[in-house]
């Protein structure tokens, strides 16, 4: 608490690197929610490379491999892969619902806490959405939203808190399982890129 009066009416400025983070979250949210169509695969394949300095190449390399995989992927096969591995509440080979990775029992309590937190942020499930809120894609969408709220102290702390509570301990087991599955091919690269990105997020939010 700084105690300084922050005018809330000021326009939200989003720095280029935060804009990039928001877009990465949007992309990850999209890829974890459903298999990509040809348009998205082409867009990934044709996007510019990421440039990294020195020893910090993990994210850029994961991106390069995802691009190569996207260039070679057949959307129908990718959709089959996604359905075979990630679809089905409780019975999917790999569950995309993070509460499974956060607690042994009492998954509902995580959901209730998450639901409350999202309600506080003014977010929630709407209309015909039936997926529980702890779907990894939904968390990516929340992070995208939070990054768009600007980079003030309170906003950054909110990002850090949300990431720490719901994503930080879940992304490694989730992405490791997808990578290890005998049924995944394209999604191994999605998982590796997700892991590399979340590693960066964890490290950068930890600097706050």
């Amino acid at each position, binding site marked *: 608490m700084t105690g300084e009066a922050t005018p809330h009416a000021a326009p939200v400025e989003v720095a280029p690197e935060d804009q990039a983070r928001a877009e990465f979250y949007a992309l990850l949210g999209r890829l974890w929610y459903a298999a990509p169509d040809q348009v998205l695969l082409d867009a990934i394949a044709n996007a510019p490379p990421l440039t990294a300095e020195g020893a910090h190449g993990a994210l850029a390399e994961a991106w390069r491999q995802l691009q190569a995989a996207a260039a070679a992927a057949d959307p129908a096969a990718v959709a089959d892969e996604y359905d075979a591995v990630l679809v089905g509440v409780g019975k999917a080979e790999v569950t995309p619902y993070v509460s499974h990775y956060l607690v042994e029992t009492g998954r509902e309590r995580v959901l209730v806490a998450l639901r409350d937190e999202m309600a506080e942020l003014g977010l929630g499930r709407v*209309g015909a959405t039936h997926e529980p809120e702890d779907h990894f894609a939904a968390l990516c969408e929340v992070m995208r939203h939070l990054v768009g709220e600007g980079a003030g102290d309170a906003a950054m702390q909110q990002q850090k808190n949300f990431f720490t509570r719901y994503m930080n301990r879940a992304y490694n087991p989730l992405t490791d399982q997808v990578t290890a599955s005998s049924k995944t091919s394209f999604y191994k690269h999605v998982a590796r890129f997700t892991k590399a990105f979340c590693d960066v997020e964890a490290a950068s939010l930890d600097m706050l």
Partner: protein
Amino acid sequence: MSNSRTRTSRRNFLLAVGAGGAATVAAIGAKTLPQAEDTNVKKAPQGSGYRVSEHIRNYYRTTLV
């Protein structure tokens, strides 16, 4: 506590790892990703057909009293 030095080192870190690659993801985002602020309806994929714009429409419907 967040201060300008923290911000600078965080920014430098993000740029060093490539996560500052705004051009990269912007190239994808503009074309293919649903944006919460953007109600353009994108082509729906087959299957579960997740569309943010549809959600937003549904949401607006719930607010019509």
